């Protein structure tokens, strides 16, 4: 009986994976066709991107500051304290910045999209839109997925910049470094191989958050309870997907020789 339940769970997982893939595929087929909902797209970009900036900026600043202060003692042990800006720069730009920003983004935006679309679904607003001749997939889903896909890279770049500023303050807590020297050292350590894969993978992070959030909200049921489930599972699944995509990105970058 237990084995059966396990198999049922697996079946559900595989089924959901397939459904999300179909949902993403539908976005490319339906969402990319005209007519485009530009107005709604801009609204969503504003809500998803601009409104997330304070949270992302705060976490980015703290992230840079804390990372610097915690790396410092280890580097002192090896006598390479002067390499702190380069090391922090590489870790923020390559990994910490994109992943932490994406997770914060998933927590805030994934849940809000899941809850918003879920509540619209359970209150039959989506059905009403369909009746009134508006394609709900285009209007609600495509705009949100495009917004998350476009906004997360911008948020990540800004978060990286703010994190580096936080790191500069972190360096200056224990020693004195000029702003120009700090940033020269940071960019001295950076390479296009660091910057490009990091920026590219954030598009995939944003897409994953948008697709999962929309899918969970768009397919929610069980009334108001389903809204909560949709919001929660959207955050969990998109967070997991962010790590999986990150793993794949590292592997692909490694295969392409971009990690050297």
């Amino acid at each position, binding site marked *: 009986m237990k084995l059966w339940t396990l198999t049922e769970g697996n079946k559900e997982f595989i089924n959901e994976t397939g459904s999300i893939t179909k949902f993403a595929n539908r976005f490319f087929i339906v969402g990319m066709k005209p007519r485009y909902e530009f*107005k709604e797209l*801009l*609204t969503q*970009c*504003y809500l998803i*991107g*601009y409104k997330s*900036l304070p949270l992302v900026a705060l976490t980015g600043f703290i992230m840079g500051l804390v990372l610097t202060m915690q790396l410092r003692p280890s580097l002192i042990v090896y006598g*390479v304290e002067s390499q702190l800006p380069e090391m922090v720069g590489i870790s923020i*730009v390559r990994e910490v910045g994109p992943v932490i920003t994406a997770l914060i983004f998933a927590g805030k935006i994934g849940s809000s999209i899941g809850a918003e679309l879920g509540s619209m679904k359970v209150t039959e607003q989506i059905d009403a839109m369909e009746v009134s001749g508006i394609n709900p997939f285009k209007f609600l889903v495509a705009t949100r997925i495009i917004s998350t896909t476009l906004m997360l*890279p*911008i*948020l990540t*770049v*800004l978060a*990286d*910049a703010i994190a580096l500023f936080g790191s500069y303050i972190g360096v200056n807590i224990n020693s004195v470094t000029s702003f120009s020297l700090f*940033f020269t050292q940071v*960019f*001295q350590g*950076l*390479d*296009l191989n*660091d*910057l490009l894969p990091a*920026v590219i993978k954030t598009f995939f992070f944003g897409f994953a958050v948008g697709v999962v959030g929309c899918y969970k909200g768009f397919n929610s049921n069980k009334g108001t309870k389903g809204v909560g489930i949709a919001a929660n599972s959207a955050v969990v699944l998109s967070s997991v997907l962010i790590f999986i995509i990150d793993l794949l990105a590292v592997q692909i970058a490694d295969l392409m020789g971009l990690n*050297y």
Partner: protein
Amino acid sequence: MGNYAENNMRLGIFVLVGLIVLIFAFYMVGKNKSIFGGNFELKARFSNSNGLMKGSNVLYSGIQAGTVKSLKLINDTTIEATLLIDNEVKSFIRKNAIVTIGTEGLMGNKVIQITPFKGNSPLVKEGDLLESKKVASIDEMLQTLSRTNDNIAGISDGLRQTVVEINKSTLWKLLGDKAAANGIESTINQMHQASINANAFSKDLEMILSETKSGKGTAGLLLTDTAFATQLRMALVGIKSAGDHANELTLQLNQMASDLKKDLDNSNGFLNFLVKDSLMIKKLNATMDNIEKGTDGFNQNMEALKHNFLFRGYFKKLEKEKEKRKTIDQSLRIDK
């Protein structure tokens, strides 16, 4: 509607700032890696790239001047590195510049260092091949260190052997012998005493010399007194004259001896009679006997004279004076 436009403005600023930061980051990274801006190529060949990679930095006198564009294997012992150099540095690099492979810090990435060389040389042109110089790598240093260690081990073995031999040797026993040590100590003390004596002697000598210089003492007089020198010269003249007389006397004696010899040989002269005439000897003996007899007779006459009453008083007086002188001599001896 107004709110919507305002939101759009905010969104626009947000996106623009994000893009500017992204472009700035790309520009900064690209600038460091010579992606943007004008640049030109130079080439350098090495026998060992020492871990140099595509994209490694190129420094000109320690300043970032470009990157390594590519590394190509020319043959089994030569690697050609193509360097992408900023145009800004072009007007400073000359054809006699030396290219070496270095390291950033102690364990950092490999970099190419272009070092200017003294002397006039034309500026480099696109695609020029710069002379490279091999720098001792850590591996080579370790190999040398390994050889040095072997040498030190050999030396320490030899030293150990020597120490063992010394321990076995008589010299070592001598070093541990207290009697020898005492003897050496005593010798050193004596040497010390000798040195003190020598010192005193040298002082005395110095004093004598100074006195001599100042004309004191016999030697000083000898060396400095001109009158003495004159006297000495006169004495020497006298001695010479005496010598000459002695020489003359010797010649005369020789002459006399030869005359006597001649007389003896020819049986002439008094000496010949004295030595060879037996009759003369007999007469001399008879004369000597007669003199002896005469002397005995004279003694008897003198003894008879003492007993004569005329001369007895005189002889008694002589006896008394003789006794008196003897007594005075004895008293003088007792006083001493």
